């Protein structure tokens, strides 16, 4: 199971730009792995988008999903 991970805003400064991520079948597993690798993430609010749609609750990833970490929006 491979996904493509994107991050935006403040989160991008912690986890970096676009990267491949292995062995994450769903959002819960991914978050745990991410917060282990980047402990600063635990302090931050962010939502997860799977293939351009924001998801709530634990969500399984389709094969080759594009998964984006999105801090609170601040456009306008």
């Amino acid at each position, binding site marked *: 199971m491979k996904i493509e991970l994107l991050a*935006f805003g*403040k989160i991008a400064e912690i986890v970096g730009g676009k990267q491949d991520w292995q062995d994450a079948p769903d959002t819960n597993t991914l978050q745990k792995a991410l917060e282990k690798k980047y402990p600063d993430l635990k302090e931050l609010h962010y939502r997860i988008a799977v293939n351009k749609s924001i998801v709530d609750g634990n969500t399984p990833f389709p094969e080759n999903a594009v998964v*984006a970490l*999105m*801090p*609170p*929006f*601040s456009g*306008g």
Partner: protein
Amino acid sequence: MVARVGTIDAARNNFYMKERKQKNIFVQGAVQSSFIGEQIGKHATRTDIGAHSIFLGQVRADTIEEKIVSAVEYTTDEEMALEKMHEIREAIFEKYELTCMHIYHSLGLVKAGEMSLFVFTSSAHRRPAIDACNEVVERIKKELPVWGKEIFENESYQWKVNK
């Protein structure tokens, strides 16, 4: 004059089409006041419009912990943002009796005193234009995946938080 009539017909057709085309709202850098004036002027040929409502967002030189904001740099997930904007646009056209709606949002650097958001709604009577403009602005602030980085005069920065 012929061109104008064509434009009106096209706009009317769009209005009655269930599926409007996805539009790009993003402009590189600030939204210019001359562009806003031109956009307003273009609608002065439409004799079915009675009211325009416009919202403009401008970058403030806020002082945060003694540092002054000199610019905001905007980034987005463009594909996701344009899809969301399309969804908002469809919902607004469904809810309000609008003649037209135009939205422009900056990407990249916008200096303090420059404009980063231009929402422009028009209708026959005033309530739909005013209420739609208001709702579009609120939804953009809450739902559009755009991030603003406030850059201070000393070149440090912080990520903007919408109220």
